[in-house]
């Protein structure tokens, strides 16, 4: 777009008004920090909503209950669920969360039958520290998600206490499933005993895998029919529908932040455009001199756009960089009704931030650049 030999010239022009440039970069950085935080939240929401296994996974919950605190189902239902035609596997799970409402710092415990968990753990997790064997040996062992480990600064061997459940970290693992990143997996009987309200033989939900995705609906109806006349009737939904319902309020909230993101975009545009316009106004005479030397209007326009782009990208690097660092370091996640939305801090967020700031910088410079390129040399000399 502009030959490399002109870049030092553009940089010198940018450095001409250091205070103005610095303030603009700070403003852009602030807006891009926010923008990236919002992007990361949006991405986290998407990840949660598009849970990998959703296609063949059903969640069986207590009818008319929406929080892990209140959904109580007998563990022995598992045999009857497994007997329903089309069901491939059943995993009883007890869930204990420290907070059922929307919160930024929720610890989620999932109690699972030891042997079943060990069987599926190999394919579900990438173990970063510790081992599944260690987990299996200790009755109070926990396998915790990487995001949770970062946020709580936990290492293998650490003891941690949440909601009165005291367990030992036996393994730290990463997983493709959004929910696993912020969860502590413990032995089912341990959690049943440890929970504030003793509840041996009681679980929160059953995770049911179906043989054929086409059967999801019918299998769900058959399961609910099976327990319709028991004291604890069930409500069975696809995992996708379950997450969508539980996180509905959050999704709405996070969806709203789109507008904040758009606001950031406009803030950056206005900031950079303002800076570029002022610097162009300062340099009417100088641009006339450059044109006299033989610079074309088009070249001058490109140099102006380059200046705006550099300033904006500098702000983007600072803002997006800090945002991703902060999100990485903080391991932030939003949770509600036992469903986690993990803020993504992927390189993609950083890349998006940089690209957006660069694009906005270019766009912001277009109009002043176009005006400068059309200015009349003699008029410019006479006007200043």
């Amino acid at each position: 777009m502009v030959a490399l030999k002109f870049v030092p010239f553009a940089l010198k022009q940018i450095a001409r008004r250091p205070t103005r440039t610095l303030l603009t970069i700070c403003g852009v950085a602030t807006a891009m920090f926010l923008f990236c935080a919002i992007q990361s939240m949006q991405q986290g929401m998407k990840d949660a909503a598009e849970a990998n296994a959703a296609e063949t996974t059903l969640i069986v919950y207590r009818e008319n209950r929406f929080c892990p605190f209140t959904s109580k189902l007998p563990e022995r239902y598992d045999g009857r669920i497994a007997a329903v035609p089309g069901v491939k596997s059943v995993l009883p799970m007890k869930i204990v969360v420290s907070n059922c409402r929307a919160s930024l710092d929720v610890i989620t415990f999932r109690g699972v039958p030891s042997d079943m968990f060990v069987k599926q753990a190999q394919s579900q997790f990438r173990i970063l520290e510790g081992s599944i064997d260690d987990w299996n040996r200790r009755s109070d062992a926990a396998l915790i998600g990487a995001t949770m480990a970062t946020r709580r600064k936990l290492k293998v061997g650490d003891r941690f206490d949440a909601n009165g459940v005291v367990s030992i970290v036996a393994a730290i693992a990463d997983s493709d499933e959004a929910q696993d990143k912020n969860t502590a997996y413990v032995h089912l009987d341990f959690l049943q005993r440890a929970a504030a309200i003793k509840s041996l033989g009681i679980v929160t939900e059953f995770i049911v895998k179906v043989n054929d995705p086409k059967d999801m609906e019918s299998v769900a109806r058959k399961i609910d029919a099976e327990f319709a006349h028991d004291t604890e009737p069930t409500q069975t939904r696809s995992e996708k529908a379950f997450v969508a319902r539980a996180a509905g309020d959050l999704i709405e909230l996070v969806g709203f932040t789109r507008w904040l993101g758009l606001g950031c975009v406009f803030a950056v545009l206005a900031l950079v455009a303002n800076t570029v316009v002022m610097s162009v106004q300062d340099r009417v005479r100088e641009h006339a001199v450059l044109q006299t030397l033989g610079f074309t209007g088009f070249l001058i326009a490109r140099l102006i756009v380059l200046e705006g782009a550099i300033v904006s990208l500098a702000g983007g690097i600072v803002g997006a960089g800090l945002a991703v660092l902060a999100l990485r370091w903080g391991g932030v996640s939003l949770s509600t009704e036992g469903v986690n939305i993990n803020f993504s801090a992927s390189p993609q967020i950083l890349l998006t931030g940089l690209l957006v700031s660069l694009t906005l910088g270019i766009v912001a410079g277009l109009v002043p650049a176009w005006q400068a390129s059309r200015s009349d040399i003699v008029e410019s000399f006479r006007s200043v």
Partner: protein
Amino acid sequence: MSYIECRKLTRAFHKGDTVIKPLRDLDLDIEEGMFLALMGPSGSGKTTLLNLLAGIDTATSGSLKIGGIELTSMPRSRLASWRADTIGYIFQLYNLVPVLTAYENVELPLLLHNYSKKERHAKVSLALDLVGLADRYDHYPRQLSGGQEQRVAIARAIVGDPKIIVADEPTGDLDAAAAAATMAMLKRLNIEFKKTMIMVTHDPKTAAVAQKTLHLEKGQLIENNA
């Protein structure tokens, strides 16, 4: 055919309902290698004529040919590259870029051509040596005296080796000594480097350096003791 040929050259500006004509039907021939001084009262159209010759302004009517090329009908972008190749412009108030060093100011016109960094360095050094500023490469305009600034401006005007150098009151803002030095330099560029030189001045002593002096009044040449 002369190197520079003006025929019925007219420049008009429209200000609301009134029309100002700083140049009217001007006929002028300038030979290649000539050192021409333009004199005349303030507002007589000297700068307007110079700007047309330098290709930074376009005539309203008439014809202006330089080296056989008609300028009046040339599109903006072609005119810009024509200037880069043909014209060196020296201003009364130097017009250096304040954020660039003397070296970088002189280098500016060379950035428009495909020279390597090394080639640019050679040309800039030559130009700065020629104006006697070999020891001021890294000085910014604000660190230079008026006379030195004008010498950097002269170096910038000649670095691209243009055929024509135009100067609008180049000594108008300088003290006597600096003015004399500047004029000596312009004379040398004319004699030694065969540059066609067109200079506007108020000062008869300055004009005396030129081969020929023309007088403008109300946008027209007045024939007299040339």
